[in-house]
């Protein structure tokens, strides 16, 4: 007799744990591949899965076996012209397969690298692994949108769907014990007396008393059985309370220079940086506000769409953007209740005396308000006044201000990681 079972509905991802184990083991390889991919990809398809290649030598599971050399013996099928004693020169590349190799699976793809695919989700996990916004604090929790339900004991009132059956039955049982306690004791006594009477000789027995007792017994039994099995009084319900979920409010200012001096390439690099930043924020901090500011001679707050795709351009006054940013902070994001972050990208070109103004605004207004301000300068040329002004800011406020230099596309991801690397003391502090 055979059993036929349909297993198709069973889970198909039986190997997913093993897959995770594998990914963890080769995390270094994957991370490297991811880093290369982030640098090479075009902006639009940054969030997509990736092919990972691992050299065979790193992934090989060793075992004892025969190597090349010595005398091997083998039988092949399909002889056409050989006769006993023929000596055939060995082909140069092939080793003439010295021994019958035990593992066919190994020799089949022996030299190939191991290639596999990771999903988009996994890819982004690796891209943003171990990154965090620095100095994030739990400031005033004004905007509470999220609640979580917390179990808060058992109550005697509620909806049927929350009925706590075990508790209810326990109560019912206790009540039944209490309510029927007296009659049951009496019943026992009556029964004992009946038994006593019945044990007596029928001549001596008091039949009248017996009848009375039987009547009493019936009455008591009825009383006990009329005790309700379950009363509304017994019912207990699980109770839940809504609890506000604290979430830190944060806003990120993305400030990009779009002046005429920014070439197409530098703009691209800047955009890539911001895309990375934007993906990171969207992915890891759902509730974050992002403000986009573009500037040439004047600054403007724009939408995400406009920020990345608009082609407007002009001269350069960097301080205009900082002023706008400061204004927005004062109007909408009071620093006592918001974590404020800013990332600025520029080619370093600025009106000569404007760099001083920038430094002044930063030091006097902005640095005290923000949690972290990053500046990246994208230029293959020498630094100009803006860089040197900012260097002074950095020296004065190393914890809240960072700046990096980017020369080509390959620098973006390392710099990005460097700026937002999770710091040890912080992850423990939260």
């Amino acid at each position, binding site marked *: *007799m*055979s*059993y*036929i*079972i*349909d*297993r*198709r509905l*069973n889970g*198909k991802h*039986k*190997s997913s744990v*093993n*897959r995770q*184990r*594998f*990914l*963890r*083991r080769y995390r270094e390889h994957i991370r490297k591949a991811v880093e290369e991919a982030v640098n090479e990809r075009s902006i639009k398809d940054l969030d997509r899965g990736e092919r990972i290649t691992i050299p065979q030598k790193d*992934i*090989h*599971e*060793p*075992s*004892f*076996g*025969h*190597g*090349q*050399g*010595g*005398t*091997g*013996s*083998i*039988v*092949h*099928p*399909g*002889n*056409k012209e*050989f*006769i*006993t*004693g*023929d*000596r*055939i*020169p*060995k082909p140069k590349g092939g080793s*003439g*397969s010295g021994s*019958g*190799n*035990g593992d*066919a699976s190994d020799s089949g793809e022996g030299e190939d690298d*191991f*290639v*596999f*695919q990771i999903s988009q989700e996994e890819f982004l996990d690796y891209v943003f692994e171990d990154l965090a916004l620095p100095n994030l604090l739990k400031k005033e929790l004004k905007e509470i949108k999220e609640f979580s339900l917390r179990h808060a004991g058992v109550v005697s009132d509620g909806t049927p769907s929350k009925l706590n059956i075990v508790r209810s039955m326990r109560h019912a049982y206790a009540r039944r014990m209490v309510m029927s306690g007296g009659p049951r004791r009496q019943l026992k006594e009556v029964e004992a007396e009946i038994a006593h009477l019945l044990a007596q000789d029928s001549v001596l027995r008091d039949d009248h008393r017996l009848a009375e007792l039987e009547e009493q017994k019936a009455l008591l039994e009825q009383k006990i059985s009329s005790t309700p099995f379950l009363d509304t009084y017994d019912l207990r319900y699980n109770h839940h309370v809504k609890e506000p979920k604290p979430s830190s409010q944060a806003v990120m200012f993305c400030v990009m220079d779009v002046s005429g001096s920014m070439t197409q390439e530098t703009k691209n690099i800047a955009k890539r940086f911001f895309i990375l930043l934007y993906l990171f924020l969207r992915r890891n901090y759902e509730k974050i506000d992002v403000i986009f500011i573009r500037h040439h001679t004047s600054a403007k707050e724009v939408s995400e769409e406009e920020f990345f795709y608009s082609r407007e351009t002009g001269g350069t006054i960097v301080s205009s953007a900082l002023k706008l940013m400061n204004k927005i902070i004062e109007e909408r994001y009071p620093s006592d209740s918001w974590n404020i972050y800013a990332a600025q990208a520029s080619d370093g070109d600025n009106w000569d005396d404007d760099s001083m103004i920038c430094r002044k605004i930063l030091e006097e207004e902005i640095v005290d308000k923000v949690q972290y301000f990053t500046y990246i300068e994208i230029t293959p040329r020498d630094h100009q006044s803006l860089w040197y002004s900012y260097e002074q800011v950095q020296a004065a406020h190393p914890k809240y201000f960072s700046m990096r230099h980017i020369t080509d596309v390959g620098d973006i991801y390392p710099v990005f990681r460097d700026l937002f690397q999770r710091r040890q003391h912080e992850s423990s502090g939260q």
Partner: protein
Amino acid sequence: MSQVASKKKRQFLSEGPEWSFELIQKYDEEIGKIAREYGLDTYPNQIEIISSEQMMDAYASVGMPLGYHHWSYGKQFLEVEQNYKRGRMGLAYEIVINSSPCIAYLMEENNMMMQALVIAHACYGHNSFFKGNYLFKTWTDATAIIDYLVFAKKYVQECEEKYGVEEVELTLDSCHALMNFGVDRYKRPVPLSAQEEQFRQDEREQILQQQVNDLWRTIPITEKDEEAAKKERVFPSEPQENLLYFLEKHAPLLRPWQRELIRIVRKMAQYFYPQRQTQVMNEGWASFWHYTLMNTLYDKGKVNDGFILEFLQSHTNVVYQPSFDSPYYSGINPYALGFAMYSDIKRMCENPTEEDREWFPDIVGKPWVEVLDFAMRNFKDESFILQYLSPKLMRDFRFFGMENDVLDPFVEIKEIHNGEGFQKLRERLSQQYNLSYREPNIQVQKVNINGDRSLVLRHVMDGDRPLNDDTVEVIKHFRRLWGFDVRLESWGKNGLVQTYTCAPDE
């Protein structure tokens, strides 16, 4: 009307390519009936229909329905998935597990003909082989394997919770590296049962540790005994071939749970040991029977012409043997050789030639079902070929044997399929399936128990073949389990050839 018409026609089990559960059951009943008529003795069957993703899962765990977690299975899964998605390989049509009931997986993508073929091949061919062959009977216990797998999986999981995934992984890595050397080749193992395992496990842990402690006792021995003790304590007293067993019992620093992990890997290796020794026989047997059963089905008028033609095409693909110079050649196809050998034995029973009478006087003219049954039960690949490979088959396959010396720029054709060659050729082919020829002979030779506890492995070279490039890596794994220095010596005909060691701190 219709009744009259269908009575005139033959009673086909099905017409179209679609399968359904009713049809699978009908086919299974019919095929099972025919199989019993031929005297095939099988475990009960459990046929499971699965999807292709599930088939890939099954692949990754070496066909086992469940196994402990390890990254190498993840690697295998990714490999299969990648190859399958890119169309570089098709999935096997079936996987069958040596258990009772015998579990066979059928893929939902297959059509009715394939399902029937798989039922015949796996549920009656492989199944009867598992139940009948002496190696499987001796080394595996089909009724207990699933329980044991459950036990192993749970145990590994508990260890991971207690000691950390990484710790467990390191130990398992090392065990896997030595897996093929965790097999008792000669001693019959005690059948394993999950209940007993669990019951004995605690006890074993304690006793084991005690024994190990005893061996490594450092309390000074009184002077008198010392001389005698030194002589006595050559350890191990005989070389040990089962490296994992040796480590499990004698490695000084392992903790009890690590010993249990070694044991689990060892048991798995032992379970698969018969399969590695009977590829040709097992696949040949299953192929022979699917061929015979399906043809009988056709002869009885249960399936139509289209069905049997489609079947023959699949069958021909399965038992195709490309010749050595073909681009598709990748060694001898065990399905082809096995199928040809069983068919040939049947032929010799029924229509022997003069040559057969001379070579196989014992089987000529005997009832073929009995002869085949005997051949299936009492051999492994090596001895099966040595016993039954006929000159006719060697001619059909156009086998030729050659020898290859690395120092010689030529390979020499030693023998071909002619009168003088048959005997030697058969021996050479048989040797090719001998596991002790395919795998190097490595044994635990000596442990310095009074000194630095270092251990010597001895490799006895066969035909001067050296070990492969993995050797040092594997020694590192061995060292990790042993806990002290390990040296491997390769001994040739004229003494020590090479010594492998690994740096102490790795």
